[in-house]
């Protein structure tokens, strides 16, 4: 829909805009804020996890948090409504369930990160938790009716179109706090870059840094999952784009800048998703990849070139 430029400016600077324009501007504003927060969280979490696991293919969902969230949503939607525990279909309950699912897996992962000796083990645990959750989810989905499955599919797709102030506002403080905390874990992460043994010789508490990094990442991913569901690609690509552009591995730079690039990518993708084929809307997860993959490819070629 077309909204006059001056109305948009007016609304942004606090002037009253009447009627439909106000509604539309509000709708766009909330999803833009959601994309900013979610994209920044994913970018920062991706940078932290790639650095911690020293694995360039680690993405924020490697900890199994989005799978846990999906499982909780599936259980609430399918078992919950089937057993009559909650109303037939209650979006608020589903949001809460999604958040609780993310929180539960986050806590589990953080606890394990403190107990487990190796990071590889942690990755495997995260991945296995993910498989466990998606297996249970499939089981729930197969045994329920078509319409519930359809609803569930939408609930587990990443999208910013769904954004609501009530959700964004309650997640925002946690997300901002976690983003600030990610700055604090950047320096200890640098020490871990050369391996845990090397880090230990520098006097850093390896265990504390690892638990801290996992906690920050889990919190960021949870915020993003609650706001927008699992939006792919952003968390994987943003840190790479930053490292290639800045030619540095220094987490004090890559973590905050990945947040910025992630936010940027998410907002651009969202704009593309809702305008490219308007009035139709494209799934944002498809757009992030379609948009982001060529950019990262171009950066790779520019940085390293061909043999």
């Amino acid at each position, binding site marked *: 829909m077309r909204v006059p430029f001056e109305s948009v400016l007016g609304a942004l600077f606090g002037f009253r805009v009447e009627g439909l324009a106000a509604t*539309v501007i509000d709708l766009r504003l909330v999803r833009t804020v959601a994309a900013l927060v979610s994209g920044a969280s994913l970018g920062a979490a991706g940078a932290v996890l790639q650095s911690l696991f020293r694995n360039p293919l680690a993405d924020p969902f490697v900890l199994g948090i989005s799978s846990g969230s999906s499982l909780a949503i599936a259980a609430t939607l399918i078992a919950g409504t089937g057993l009559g525990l909650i*109303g037939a279909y209650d979006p608020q309950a589903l949001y809460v369930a999604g958040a609780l699912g993310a929180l539960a897996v986050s806590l589990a992962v953080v606890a394990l990160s403190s107990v487990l000796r190796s990071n590889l083990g942690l990755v495997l645990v995260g991945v296995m938790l993910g498989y466990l959750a998606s297996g249970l989810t499939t089981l729930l989905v197969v045994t329920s009716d078509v319409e519930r499955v359809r609803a569930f599919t*939408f*609930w587990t797709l990443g999208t910013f*179109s769904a954004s609501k102030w009530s959700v964004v506002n309650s997640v925002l403080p946690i997300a901002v706090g976690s983003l600030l905390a990610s700055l604090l874990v950047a320096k200890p992460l640098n020490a871990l870059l050369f391996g845990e043994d090397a880090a230990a010789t520098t006097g850093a508490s390896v265990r504390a840094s690892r638990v801290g990094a996992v906690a920050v990442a889990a919190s960021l991913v949870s915020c993003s999952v609650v706001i927008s569901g699992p939006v792919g690609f952003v968390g994987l690509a943003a840190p790479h784009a930053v490292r290639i552009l800045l030619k540095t591995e220094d987490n004090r730079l890559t973590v905050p800048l990945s947040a910025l690039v992630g936010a940027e990518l998410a907002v651009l993708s969202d704009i593309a998703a809702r305008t490219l084929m308007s009035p139709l809307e494209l799934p944002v997860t498809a757009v992030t990849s379609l948009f982001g993959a060529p950019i990262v490819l171009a950066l790779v070629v520019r940085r390293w070139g061909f043999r």
Partner: protein
Amino acid sequence: MMPKGGTLRPVFAAALIAALLVGLFGGYLAAGATGGGLNTVTVTREVARTVELRTTLTERLLQTVTLTLERPVTVTRIETQLAEKREPEVKHARFFSIERGDGYTLLRDGLNRTVLLVKRGQSAPQNVKADLVVQVPVERMVLMSATHVALVERLREYAPDIWDRVAGIMWGRSYQWFFSEVERRFAEGKLVDVGAAWSPDYEKLIELKPDLVMIYTFEGDPVRSKLEELRVPYVVNSEWLENTLLGRFEWVKFVAAFFGLDEVGARVFRLVELRYQLISTRVSASMATLNVKPVKVAWFSVYKGTVFVAGGLSYVANSIYDLNAVYAFSDLKATGGRQVSLEEFVARARDADVLVVSTDLIQTLEALTDEIPQVAEFKAVREGRVYRFNSNIYQLGYMDTEGWFLDLASMLYPQLFPDHTLSYFVAL
């Protein structure tokens, strides 16, 4: 003078005759061109109408043609002709057809495959080529969808033992059945659940020895290729792709053919078509006399803020047009559903007179406003004209297509149907 005159007279006479001939011929041509042309039009129309009113396909027509000429003379002649024109047996559905020959019926199914139906015990005609030959009536059919079940159930009124010819239903025990007969048969073990429609239990399916499986299919469907591989005979029902309500329901003829109930299928459809047209006519006539304005409708579902609307060419939209109403997404060139952005939905649906939430999961206005807070400001919400699907709509609402349409008509124009109670929709 005499000889001159003697030579002139035959020339004059010849010229006169020639002129007369030319005049007559020209006149004949002219008359033929105008009168004849007009006449042909009338006759064609008459023929068409006569055929439509009768159910037999080919018949001799005795036509009375009246020609009015320039002079006040009326010539009446009686003309006998063979009307070779056949009424197309399928009028609304676009994805199947029926062709009748001597002792056989040739169907085209949803994939445009030819299916030759031969009466049980008779041999297939040698000169007719077909992708599949089916002996009718079938004895052990398996159905894939609740919509197939609904059509069989509709035919049951005229063929009480029709379910004896069905052996299994996919997802049979997963559905909440609104057909007590089907539920009863499952309880008695006369019907077997053959597993999920997207991944049936093939062992169980083969064990049932079906003589035909009715499926719906789509690009890359694994079930169809598996049936092909297992050499299980199947036909494709594409009722869900039709873009009109009557087109969707006309598949009752397709289903009926396999049970040898062609006549019944045609009769049931005729009845539904007539009732549909009556409702549509009643609405347009009443609107003119009572000065009722057309209403605007938005038809959508929403999960986690993702809005799906019915396309502007869908059966939903066409039903709305047939009730002289306006559809909020009429410019969306799609026969199925499409995802639209929330702002586009808000912009178009806020002034709609009627909202229809096309799901039975969202059951309260609170759930709807939780999904889309802006809906609270919508005209339809303020005026209390928001409806949702009743859970029975997928089964009973399809079986009773005319009832579905009547429900819609009464939702759009409650003043025209004051005593109507909704069956397949529920007010939020």
